């Protein structure tokens, strides 16, 4: 059985139908990519998986590790192992990155019946992860995402991901606004987290990211549905020939 199974998902935003019967199954241990032009529902899909409010789910269901995901509030989903790497990470003035990370780690630990992380252990863990990701560890003293460059924000997202060790992570256009060096660092961070128990959904507009995070499957989203699925070569074909060929298929 797939780790996450999306069945016939219909979602409207502000009265407008955006997803119109999207189905997708992702096995543990795999990386799937969704590509598509702007305005086809890529961000809607990631927000619906993460549990953001304001989306009208008209039909369909999402089953994650045997649980009805859509019935769970956003924070519970995260504690169960869902992670969304934001396209635009939110700046939160006055909340230090380290206080935020510690609170998030402890929320997950408590849900798993573990005790809170000890302050020394926390620092050691964060420093090790920062080092592995090439993130300056004084970043964690700064207010969360405030004044971070585009690259720093994306690295901070991957840092959070590696600390929270999700079972299923959605990367929403993580490559947008990244130069090639940052892209490599972020991709290496994601690749380090790949394993037989976890799965990833990489949402992107461009094929470039998929050179670094190599997907097992690629899907084309157009008109609110998946209109084509295939291996890596599908992304290459898309890069070469454009989206037009698929849009007619919708």
């Amino acid at each position, binding site marked *: 059985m797939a780790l996450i199974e999306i069945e016939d998902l219909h979602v409207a935003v502000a009265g407008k139908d955006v997803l119109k019967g999207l189905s997708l199954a992702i096995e543990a241990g795999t990386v799937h990519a969704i590509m598509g032009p702007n305005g086809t529902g890529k961000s809607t899909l990631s927000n619906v998986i993460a549990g953001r409010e304001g989306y009208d789910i008209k039909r369909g269901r999402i089953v994650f590790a045997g649980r009805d995901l859509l019935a769970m509030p956003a*924070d519970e989903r995260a504690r169960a192992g869902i992670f*969304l790497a934001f396209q635009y990470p939110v700046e939160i003035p*006055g909340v230090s990155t380290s206080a935020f990370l510690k*609170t*998030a780690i402890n*929320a997950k630990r408590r849900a798993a019946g573990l005790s809170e992380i000890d302050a020394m252990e926390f620092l050691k863990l964060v420093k090790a992860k920062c080092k592995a990701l090439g993130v300056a560890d004084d970043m964690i003293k700064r207010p969360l995402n405030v004044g971070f460059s585009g690259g720093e924000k994306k690295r901070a997202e991957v840092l*959070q991901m590696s600390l*929270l060790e999700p079972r299923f992570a959605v990367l929403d256009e993580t490559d947008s606004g990244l130069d090639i060096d940052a892209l490599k660092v972020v991709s290496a961070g994601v690749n380090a987290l790949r394993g037989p128990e976890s799965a990833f959904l990489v949402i992107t507009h461009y094929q470039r990211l998929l050179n670094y995070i190599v997907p097992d499957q690629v899907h084309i989203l157009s008109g609110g549905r998946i209109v084509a699925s295939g291996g890596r070569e599908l992304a290459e074909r898309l890069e070469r020939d454009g989206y037009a060929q698929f849009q007619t298929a919708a």
Partner: protein
Amino acid sequence: MASVLSSSRSTAHPFGERYAGRMGPLPGASQPWVDGLRQAGRAALTSSGLPGPKVEAWRYTSLAELAKVAFIPAATADDVEVASVPSRVPRLDGFPRLVLVNGVLRRDLSDVAANAFAVPLRDALNGGDPAVRAVLGKIAPVSGSPISALNTSFLSEGLVVSAQSGAPVRLQIVTIGAAGAEPAAFHPRIVLTASDGADVTVAVHHVGLPGQSYLSNPVTEISIGRGATVRNFVDLAEDGDAFHLGLTAVNLAANGSYEDFRLALGGGLIRQDVTAIFSGDGGRVTLNGAYALAKTEHHELATTFFHDVPNCNSEQIVRGVAAGRSRAVFQGRIRVAPNAQKTDARQNHKALFLDAGPKIDCKPELEIFADDVQCAHGAATGEIDHDQLFYLLSRGIDPDTARALLVAGFLVDVVSRLSIDVVREAFAGAVSAWLKTRVVSGGVP
């Protein structure tokens, strides 16, 4: 009992003959100028009364409830029973402490190291200190300020702090309100003079003994000499039923610098005014503040900056949160005189509703008569930002904890601008303590 009849422009008040008659002998009897100041205060109080709702500057803060209380003058004997300074007030490392009870300097409760810098106002008035005479009532005149008029009417207690250039002066000033069985009022006056090149930091805590009804009516006049720096950090944590009508008036000579932080975390009805006058080129004022209100608390911060000369900067950042049926007001007036070119004046107020009950008003008022200036104001009130909340939820943080983090961050963001570490940490600690009792424990959704 009331000296004037209530109308929409003035409110009848309990500070007339009966009140004055219950005061002991006032100091400075041999100094006609002292009595002249008090007469001017009473004349202003008699002719205008306390302001009513039709007075524009007071339209958001009604004194009707205060005017109903039959205040008596608070005891000013120097043996009013205060066992210790309330534990709410932290010790600040490097800040020797002065304690005023009902405005009276209590050397027995103060630190030896602090006593050297301070003279009780009563002594200065009796002795006719010319340095005090040069400042008193000049920076905080009674005209246009009902708070000053009330304070000046009963001028007697308070402090004189003088600092020369040389070693920086740091002081913690704790004012404690201690009423007896009857509601009591006190009117402390602090005169702070920083000579040319001096560097002075004061942390002022306004607290009360619990469960007492009192009016604290402090006025602080600060004279900042050429190139001198004054930092004035005010922690207002009056007791739940207390009234507080305070004014800080500042005058800056050329290249003077003034940093003010207003932390307001409690009290029944609070209005604090801050007035700054730039009287020499190159002056700089930073006024930041954070407030957190609950229940039926009322807090108004009203600032007035007079950019009367060129090349001066002022910056104000105020953040507040309000819950319950509380009421928050920020009024910020900036006047740039015709010749005050190259003025840079900025003002920003943001407040969060923690539930549907509170009312928050913000009124920026920019009067700009010069053309080569930069002035900006921003104001926003709203609920907790949904995107920020979702971001925290998406990391597994439960909604209550997420909200508490965001509210704390909203306030701590401005507290973090405070320039002196030990005070910043103390103020941040006070904010956390407030949030722990009001937000995390479920008192506020």
